[in-house]
């Protein structure tokens, strides 16, 4: 990236708002992590950042670099795919572990085993 390359206003606005949107979603998720009561609720909060928030940042990146290099830059798609594949694994592991423990402890917040 060179400093003196003139970025169009449109590009700047689009990129900026996408980035802000992503950062805002991630911040909201973080806030939720802090505020929400139960583990299962908090889990939802984190997904904001990893799905839509991450997506906005990636789109911003694709758009920005495509304009900058005047060719389509789509590396970010790989990141998207990897994120899509791996995030569910970790979340599911967490939820399963929590659910298992709650059931063993006989917590009334979770439905009993089928």
């Amino acid at each position, binding site marked *: 990236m060179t400093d003196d390359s003139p970025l169009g206003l449109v590009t700047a606005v689009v990129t900026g708002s996408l980035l802000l949107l992503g950062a805002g979603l991630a911040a909201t998720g973080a806030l939720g992590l802090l505020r929400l009561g139960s583990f299962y609720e908090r889990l939802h909060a984190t997904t904001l950042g990893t799905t839509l928030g991450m997506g906005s940042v990636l789109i911003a990146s694709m758009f920005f670099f495509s304009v900058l290099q005047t060719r389509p830059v789509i590396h970010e798609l790989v990141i998207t795919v990897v994120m899509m*594949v*791996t995030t*569910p*694994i970790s979340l*599911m592991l967490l939820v399963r572990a929590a659910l*298992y423990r709650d059931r*063993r402890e006989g917590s009334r917040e979770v439905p009993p085993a089928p």
Partner: protein
Amino acid sequence: MSGATIDSLLLLGAVVLPFIGALAAGLLPTHARNAAAWLAGAVSLGAFLLLCTVYQAVTAGGVVRLELEWMPSLGLAFVLRADGLATVFGGLVTGMGALVVLYARYYMAAEDPVPRFFAFLLAFMGSMLGIVVSGNLVQIAFFWELTSLFSFLLIAYRHHIAAARDGARMALTVTAAGGLALFSGFLVLGHIAGGFDLDVVLGAGSQIHAHPLYPVALILILLGAFTKSAQFPFHFWLPQAMTAPTPVSAYLHSATLVKAGVFLMARLWPVLSGTDAWFWTVGTAGAITLLVGAYIAIFQHDLKGLLAYSTISHLGLITLLLGLDSELAMVAAIFHTLNHATFKASLFMAAGIIEHETGTRDIRRLSGLNRFMPFTARLALVAAAAMAGVPLLNGFLSKEMFFATALTADEPLPLGLKLLPVTAVVASAFSVTYSLRFIHGTFFGPDPTDVPSMPHEPPAWMRLPVELLVLACIMVGVLPAATIGPLLDVAARSVLGETTPEYSLVVWHGLTRPLVMSTIALALGVTLYLALQRHLRRGVEIVPFLGALSARRLFDRAMVFLSWRLARSIDRVFGTRRLQPQLRLVVCVALVLAAAAAFVRGVGPGNIAPSEVDPVLAIVWAIGASCALGAAVTAKLHRFAALVMLGGAGIVTCITFVWFSAPDLALTQLLVEIVTTVLLLLGLRWLPQRKDGAGAQRRPLIERVGRLRDFGIAATAGVGMAALAYAVMVRMPPELLAQHYLARAYTEGGGTNVVNVILVDFRGFDTLGEITVLCAVALTTYALLRRFRPAPESVQLPAQQLDQIALDAARPEPRRGRLVADWLLVPSLIGRLLFPAIGIFAVFLLLRGHDEPGGGFVAGLTASVAIIIQYMLMGTEWVEARVRVLPLRWMGGGLLFAAGTGIGAWFFGYPFLTSYFGYVRLPLVGEVPAASALLFDIGVFALVFGATVLMLIALAHQSVRGRRATPALDATAPSPRVAVGAATGDD
């Protein structure tokens, strides 16, 4: 005479051949008795013939010399130097070796692992030859220690017998300690003479005598020679070493090992002798050894013990001759060395035959064997007569020479006493007595009644070496000038040069004083034997008068003190079994040293102005720092949380690397973090739980003070590290190594990724060392975990496994192990799908490593992550039923591959690990850069992958094994499964 003449190459061949033979013999199957014997015999004979050829050159033209570069930067060359003395000794070593091999073939039992024996024997022969023909002091010391080592292995050949182990250990302790003294003495001598080359040293005689360090060098060198040649007071190891198989005794303790010390004294005789110090030390030690050895030998009941003490006594005789500072004595010493080797080796072999046939070596039980093995008896009789110094045998001639020199030598004794002739006669009488005892006690008298097996003649081939040696005794005894004359002349001349005295090698000198002395000694010896009959019959073990004076007991006490009491008390004072004090000590030492360095050299300001603080990076660092602090705070009671926060700190480090444009480091850091976290997580389960109950009441004061101190140490160390890093980062030396690397990475290493080029090319040797260490660490981890017994409270199965077992017990067979599988169905499916993707990514990282971020290390870690995910999600048993990783092969293969790539450079005439790069045209892809460094990187990859997976598997198997160790549960679940993710598709 430097440069490689044919003769010098033959000499090199003679030295190298036994080692090659040893290697080959060692690789033979355990019971390949004949093959090993043939090989060993051929090698010994080959070396012998090579030395014969060299001998021709030596007689014709002086010294054969070969000089090869060894450590040119230190001025050390590998020098082989064969003169008369060296060649004659070398011929003795190899010729005797061939005879011993033949003898050993029949002596060793069929069930013994004979190839090992011959391998050690050949290696020993090579080391002995090395001592003899080395032309460099350091090299002599090197081969000297090699002989100590191989003699240790030979003596301890029957290592299942405690006495053999003890004897071998004692021999090694004494001779190797002497070897160290010898080495230091050589260093002093080389310092005095101005070089380690033997020719330089031998040419600096007057300089050495005059130097103030001469006594130091002399004492140290003599310590080495005396320990090796079993001189009083270091003689005690030799009788203990008689636990060796008899061929070893015949070889080591008559002809070779113990003669090394004598050889060395003869070798350095021209430059070390001629002073009072030499006369008193060498002469006294020799005289005492001569008398004491002969005296003790009379009272030995073990045939080999008798021979051992007799050997000690004869070595004392040779040493005494060397100490006398007369040229004639020198000739006599060499002569007696050769004679002693022949008759003593044959006597040892005869003793071995007797033991082989009767099953015992105890003179008190043996008797009358003359009727059962008449031929062996005749041979032993002749050899023993040579030992006693009976006329017409070789022992007689050298004894005459000894008497002659004893009469003429100057003795700087007060009062004009002449002790030497008396000593000589008394010692000779003793030797007559023990020779008589050997023969009379064993072969004459009534038939033996108390032997384990009834004896008969041994196989003819086993007797052949004895026959040859006895023949040599007789031939030399009858026709000395025609047989041994030329050899002796060449050997003596090479030591004495111009000053070689006139001596006559004839049997009959007329009625001279030495002859009278001989006669007196013979008569005295026979009388003594008759007089001692009664005492010897009683079979008492203790030697009269000298029983209390046991050097061996002193040695044992010293060993117990050193290796047991002293070690224990030092351990008590300085040692600890707890981890905390050890760590504290390590950290404190590092702190003190670093502080001292800063204090002594001073710390100035750097020459680079620090850049502005970037707020974003500052925030990131704040997060990292809080993670680290949080980890420290929670580490005691909440290990899991601490681990998570440690990961957070690691990620911040990783981001910092990215921030400062170090993608390679960032990538590596990221993967290391992942793998470390996972491995630590797996280990967590085995740590004992800590209870938070004690927090309520206040801790005692001393504990709080201790904690405060530990906190202080930790904080100081951390701040110190930070300060050190800061100090390094704010200065830029004018000549930075990094600039050199940056400039040459592409032109000389053929890669644009400088980090990778440094790792695999510029500093490839370092990397090779590092991966070797990694290998060792992984193997150590594996070994430690194999024997790991977890704390009792963590042996209990986790809830999930218990549930699984209960479920398995309740449900029919096909549903076994399904509980967790059902729980983690989706993650494990995705995880399985990820396996090929991660694998491809690893290969991608490996291949692009030379030019872009990546490389073998990162690729190896990535690939291991792929495996780790499978283990975690699918369970140990499921994975191992499908993928066998065989980490040891990966590691070994990787190491071999990396080293092999380095060695490959040799074949193109470049130094080790020189890398080649160029471009290769591939179909479809076109021209791609190719460097041999990539091959090296593949080796790194395989090793890192194997090492990581090995540690993982070691941890994973813990959970399987820990479960099996619980017998109560085994009863309910005969085939337990690993429940952390069990099979999904195998039913």
